[in-house]
């Protein structure tokens, strides 16, 4: 991390700028220091307790690594990696499942046309992930609903509504229900204003946080359904029912 810079001395009061004193790097990511003509810049480094990498960090790393290997080894001693019948191109198992991390996609494929489920949505997801840092996200660190509450509420509800209708049209209840829940939780702080507690915390989450959370819940729900609850013909099957 950067050494902390802090403006020192009186700020220049100007109509365009408002100087603020804050040492929290998270709250105020970009900083400008204004210096008067003859004042020499003095940088004060904030004191933070430091420790030697060796052994403090390295030993912890080694412990973590060893614990991980131990866990893996125990897993490997008791659970064998699956090996089914030899590949038989003439017989498609029912259902034919992709590796588990693609089962969310396969589940999508069950609802949407292949072009949407197999190409558009995953591509959108990857692009969205890549561009996250390039949006000026979380510049406003105040409560999401503090300003323009009405406007934001309408926007959020509109997006959630359109999304829900689309999902309803395709009968994608597996996505619809979490979407509605997430949207409901998201807008709750807009009506019940609290500065502290869970609601206050939820209210201070930025928009990107909500989108990411929604995405993660979607991924988990879809993958779980595809992995555990799908049987022959991709029909709903309880996991304790054995498929042969």
């Amino acid at each position, binding site marked *: *991390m*950067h050494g902390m810079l802090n403006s020192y001395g009186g700020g220049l009061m100007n109509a365009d700028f408002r100087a603020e004193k804050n040492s929290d790097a*998270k709250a105020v*990511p970009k900083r400008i220091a204004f210096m008067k003509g003859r004042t020499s810049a003095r940088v004060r480094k904030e004191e*933070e*307790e*430091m*420790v*030697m*990498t*060796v*052994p*403090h*960090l*390295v030993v*912890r*790393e080694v412990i*973590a*690594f060893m614990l*991980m290997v131990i866990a*893996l*080894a125990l897993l*490997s*001693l008791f*659970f*064998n*990696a*699956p*090996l*089914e*019948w*030899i*590949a*038989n*191109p003439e*017989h498609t*198992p029912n259902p*034919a*499942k*992709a*590796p588990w*991390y*693609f089962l969310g*996609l*396969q589940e999508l*494929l069950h609802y949407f046309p*292949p*072009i949407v*489920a*197999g*190409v558009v949505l995953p591509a959108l997801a*990857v692009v969205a*992930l*890549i561009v*996250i*840092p390039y949006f000026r996200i*979380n510049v406003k660190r105040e409560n999401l609903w503090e300003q323009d509450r009405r406007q934001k509420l309408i926007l959020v509800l509109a997006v959630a509504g359109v999304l829900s209708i689309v999902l309803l049209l395709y009968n994608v209840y597996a996505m619809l229900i979490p979407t509605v829940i997430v949207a409901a939780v998201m807008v709750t702080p807009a009506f019940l204003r609290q500065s502290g507690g869970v609601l206050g915390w939820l209210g201070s989450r930025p928009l990107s*946080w909500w989108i*990411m959370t929604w995405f*993660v819940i979607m991924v988990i729900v879809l993958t779980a359904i595809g992995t555990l609850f799908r049987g022959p013909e991709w029909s709903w099957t309880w996991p304790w029912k054995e498929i042969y």
Partner: protein
Amino acid sequence: MKESLRALTRSQAWRSIFRHGLPLSNRTRAEAVFYNFFLHVHPAKVRKRSVKFTYTWGLGGLSAGLFIVLVLTGALLMLYYRPSVQQAYGDMKDLQFVVSSGQFLRNMHRWAAHAMVAIVFLHMLRVFYTGSYRPPKEFNWVIGVILFVFTVLLSYTGYLLPWDQLAYWGISVGTNMVRSVPFGLGERISYLLLGGNIVGENALVRFYVLHCFVLPVAAMVLMGIHFWRVRKDGGV
């Protein structure tokens, strides 16, 4: 006994390998980081609060650790595996029944691979929720996302190699998804990937090469950059 041990630690060969004794002073500890190739990814000193486990949950480190485990077990498995339709499945059986600890190796590799996909994903979530992608680390986030995609691809290409029903149809379903890419592009990509229109001998060889050479090397290069940038941006 003690003398001979001391003689050993004083021999030139020993000292050429271990230049220093146990680093007991802060100076030698710092030197250990400076002069050691592997420790060099770390700064000599770190902030005390970042040493705390819950600071990063160690997910990045564990991903790297899993990668090491995968490389080691993978290299050993390569000794017994032949990427051909006739032999691949039999080699799996031989690993299970004949190779000493063969089943254990394969289990390790398999479970570590699954674990890596999950842990890299969790790592990504951690980075997002702690806001660690923010400038100036935005490009490292992009590299991280690419590394996640590579992790999934590595796992996916390895999935075919045992050549059992699970592998065959898992890959068939996957490549059929690729086919839905429009403008005939999907067909081409899947053809390129499989070396044909069906999952067969060509696909097996291609997946093998991707799995054992192309993707790991690419991932290693990206991991180098990833770690380097983490260090340069002041992370642990």
